[in-house]
């Protein structure tokens, strides 16, 4: 019988990461879609970086940054009593950074595809920015929002490199399914690895199927 703990831990990590990213992404995307800030391209490039960077590179830099030996890690542990290396909190921070483009890109492309006159029409009707975003803009990019949420969740579940670098493999703390598979294989427990892998495979397929069904229906957002 396989240990269910890594599955729950993975689901918890993916859920928390998705919620945090959604809350961060909506205002960030609104700003990116409508502002005329000169260095916007730099920020967009930074956000997309995890798409092309090997996870071990990101994981390595995060490990260095979070380490209590260095300034940022020391600052966190001195002032907030927060340790991000080999902890669940550290995994969340790393996942948020790593999955950032999977939430941002669909929402941003959804907003950019909306006619600018929608926002202006709402303003001329006396509505505030907040009302405009919540009542007009977001309801009109539902497919993009759903794509962002599902892709972020799925991508976080599939993490390996970053998790291994920042979290290691501490049972009930940082040992997620992908790590568990790796360890089962290392100790020649092919049956257990097979069960974990099968669950992830089926889950990932279902998720992508959902996204493509949504997208075929709306044809408004791009996936990546």
């Amino acid at each position, binding site marked *: 019988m396989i240990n269910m703990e890594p599955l729950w831990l993975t689901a918890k990590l993916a859920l928390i990461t998705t919620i945090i990213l959604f809350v961060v992404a909506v205002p960030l995307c609104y700003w990116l879609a409508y502002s005329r800030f000169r260095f916007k391209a730099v920020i967009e490039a930074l956000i997309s970086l995890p798409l092309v960077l090997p996870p071990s590179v990101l994981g390595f830099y995060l490990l260095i940054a979070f380490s209590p030996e260095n300034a940022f890690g020391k600052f966190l542990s001195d002032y907030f009593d927060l340790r991000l290396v080999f902890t669940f909190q550290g995994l969340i921070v790393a996942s948020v950074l790593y999955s950032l483009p999977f939430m941002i890109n669909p929402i941003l492309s959804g907003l950019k595809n909306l*006619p600018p*006159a*929608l926002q*202006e*029409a*709402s*303003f*001329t*009707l*006396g*509505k*505030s920015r907040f009302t405009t975003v919540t*009542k*007009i803009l977001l*309801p*009109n990019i539902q497919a993009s929002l759903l794509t962002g949420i599902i892709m972020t969740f799925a991508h976080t579940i599939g993490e390996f490199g970053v998790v291994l670098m920042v979290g290691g493999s501490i049972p009930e703390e940082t040992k997620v399914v992908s790590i568990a598979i790796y360890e089962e294989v290392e100790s020649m427990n092919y049956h257990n690895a097979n069960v974990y892998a099968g669950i992830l495979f089926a889950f990932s397929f279902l998720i992508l199927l959902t996204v493509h069904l949504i997208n075929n229906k709306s044809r408004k957002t791009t996936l990546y």
Partner: protein
Amino acid sequence: MIQFHAYKMLQTADGELPLDVSLTFEKGQFIAIYGNSGVGKTTILRILAGLTEAEKVDINVGDDIWDDSLKRFHLPVQKRSIGFVFQDFALFPNLTVKENLEFALSKNDSTQIVSELIELMELESLQNSKPQNLSGGQKQRVALARAIVRKPEILLLDEPLSALDDEMRFKLQDYILKTHEKYQLTTLMISHSIAEIFKLSDKVIVIDKGKISKQGTPNEVFAETKISSKFQVTGEIISITKSDIIYVVQVCSGNNIIKVVATEEEIIDYKIGQKVLVASKAFNPVIQILL
């Protein structure tokens, strides 16, 4: 009285073009803005609405200041009493026709105005439809109704009728005129159609290369300079007026206005908006009805 002055450098396909426009008009007037594409007509409406910033803007509406470039004062779009009808209508796709109108209400407004406008614009049967299921003319009516829900002081129409066929245009011109009078609006409308301008507006402003090249009543601006006497063209009757014992019929053909004298028997058959042929016979053009 509404005073408007704006200076803005426009980026056009032919390079930079300074827009420098001063306008004064009275409350309740219907103003048409006429001119070629890309001369800054839409920008004028957008600056007035507060949607576009300019290097220098001064706008006074009655006793209220909307923009004052010296004091660097800019009243946000939301606080200006305007209704704006966009060229592509900008209806909210997630809301039904009725919800589009209700969205414009403020917190404590009564919904009575919404039902009144739905009735006035004959939208009863469409009120629960989503905008994507409406025709161009229907969308137009919804956009117009939505712009009036807040009973704005100034109604801004950005070429609202350009995408519609003639029959729809005539109908919508009537709707526009009806709302302008009923809600005592001050209306500014961009239009490319001289016939439309004659029908609707009290005053026309011609914009050329970012400046006002002409302004006055439609008659003063268009009729006098564009009369020709040797031709055979088709056009549309835009007005029939009695002058002593005869009638003067004005026919619009393309951008020309032709004045033709007609007798009382003849004008019985003429209607405004009718398509006619105007031919020059010696020095007196005659009108012939087209089927």
